[in-house]
């Protein structure tokens, strides 16, 4: 969109150029690798995890990490109050965090993009209806809203995803609506109408590809947020139910032993920190890469 006439650059699609700009930042690339590493660990958990995450061994109750006295290499990060291997539980817990994060963002972005495009392009009563609904949903505190929904529907993977997506779609919706409002006034949209393009064609094929970058950026930031929310719900006992490992519930499990066995809470907490931080850096990098004005 910038006014720089590119003379002799090779013909590359704007998407490829953006990805190249993203990869040029070492920090972004490192964090992207970290995030992908977490995803791979999560998918390959049964192959990678040294132990069964739910196998309790009371002889190893609160066994410290390998480098401390009484630790074992086989139980690298120590064991929890039931003698379960913390490293294995973190690997399995990544599945819950990443799956819920991705699922919520997928559902929320799909709904948000559809609603935002409709509100921003069609305007009129569609816009009024969608925007008022968005305003109402924004009025509820997020976590309390989710807790209330789960209290009604009961805990469980599907209910958690629905409870979080119920409000999460509002955010991509607002982004898409605003971008669509700006894009619909541009001449290439008018040109498409003059050529006989239907509203659906214009929304999907002309406007959406141009507003996808902010949507991707927002989705990644929000994914980090959803992972924290899921951890919070699990911490409060409203997440996936025991014995399934989840980072939030692991932190909660370790609360009672913080002084004697700090590792029970600390390592899953660190896992949350690293994943969320990496996702945020990646989204920052994506924003810089997708926005040519940020480019040096």
């Amino acid at each position, binding site marked *: 969109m910038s006014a*720089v006439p*590119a003379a002799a650059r090779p013909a590359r699609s*704007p998407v490829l150029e953006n990805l190249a700009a993203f990869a040029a930042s070492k920090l972004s690339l490192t964090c992207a690798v970290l995030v992908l590493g977490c995803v791979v660990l999560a998918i390959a958990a049964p192959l990678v995890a040294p132990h069964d995450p739910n196998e309790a061994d009371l002889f190893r109750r609160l066994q410290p990490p390998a480098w401390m006295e009484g630790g074992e290499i086989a139980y690298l990060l120590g064991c929890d109050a039931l003698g379960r291997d913390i490293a294995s539980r973190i690997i399995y817990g990544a599945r819950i965090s990443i799956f819920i994060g991705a699922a919520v963002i997928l559902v929320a972005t799909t709904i948000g993009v559809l609603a935002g495009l409709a509100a921003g392009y069609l305007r009129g009563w569609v816009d*009024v209806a969608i925007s008022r609904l968005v305003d109402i949903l924004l009025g509820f505190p997020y976590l309390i809203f989710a807790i209330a929904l789960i209290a009604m529907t009961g805990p469980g993977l599907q209910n958690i995803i629905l409870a979080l997506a119920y409000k999460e779609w509002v955010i991509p919706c607002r982004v898409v609506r605003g971008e669509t409002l700006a894009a619909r006034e541009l001449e*290439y949209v*008018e*040109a498409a109408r003059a*050529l006989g393009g239907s509203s659906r064609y214009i929304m999907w094929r*002309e406007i959406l590809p141009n507003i996808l970058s902010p949507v991707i950026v927002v989705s990644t930031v929000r994914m980090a947020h959803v992972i924290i929310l899921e951890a919070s719900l699990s911490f409060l006992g409203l997440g996936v139910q025991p014995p399934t490992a989840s980072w939030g519930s692991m932190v909660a499990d370790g609360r009672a032993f913080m002084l004697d066995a700090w590792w029970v809470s600390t390592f899953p907490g660190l896992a949350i920190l690293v994943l969320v931080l990496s996702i945020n850096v990646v989204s920052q990098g994506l924003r810089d890469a997708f926005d040519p004005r940020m480019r040096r």
Partner: protein
Amino acid sequence: MSTSAITAAPALVEMRGLTRHYDSRRGLWGRLTGNPGVLVQAVNGVDLDIRRGETVGLIGESGCGKSTLGRVAIRLHEPTAGSVRFDGTDLATLSPLELKRLRRRLQIIFQDPYASLNPRKSVLELLATPLRLHALASGPELADRVGAMLQAVGLGPEHLRRYPHQFSGGQRQRIGIARALMLEPDFVVCDEPVSALDVSVQAQIIGLLGRLKRELGLTYLFISHDIAVIGHVSDRIAVMYLGEIVEEGPRDAVLGDPRHPYTQSLLASVPRIEGTPGGARRQRLQGDLPSPVAPPPGCKFHPRCPVAVARCAREAPATTAVRPGHRVRCHLVT
């Protein structure tokens, strides 16, 4: 492209009382309280005929409603009142499907060669879109037609895979022209197609538009604020002021014997070499275009008119024919 006006041909486009107001009344509160809000009178009661094969130049200052008129003329925007007949069909009576079919014959070339091309589409995609939307061609035929059109506007097959940001302004405008002509339209609105370009490139694009018009038998409504450009391309000229056409006629009549004080001032504002005839009775235009939100009563030009009389502030003037095909909207012209 300045052939003499083809007076015998029937009008391809007939605008009658064409009006477009923008209602910027905001939100529920305004509607509940009955707040009339701000009404922008972009186009007000325009009558204009465009005959097949001619170029009508539409000239006026920025903000006078030229572009809006061009868009309403091809029903890219809905008129608030009035009608447009295209080749005998009233555009307002068409169903969405019929309108889509007619869109093939009504096209527009835009001013801004940066905003008018979707930055995410390659030239091939940009030019294939019109044909795909109307299911006119596919496969090798589609590629052939895109290639032929690209050649017609002076670009080559090596440009097919490039994206808009890799072209200069003039090249982008060529792509915009190619896109508008892919559907083989009859009537093309050229909305300031050269205003954003360098002067040297302007000449190339004007030459290209002229050649394409001859080769493809096009009819143009050519919008510009540049008198030199309008004088060069038009068969007939319409002068627009604050949403109304104040003078309209054959090019040589309007430029050589302008009757409306506004046209006279516009022509006087063109820098000219001292001593050329016709400079003496012309007046420089003072002040700015009044807001189309609150246009002056009576003749809309009277606050800036050098020869206004008391009547001008009270009554809106009617249109007077000063000679066949040359109409002026002014009390002082009889």
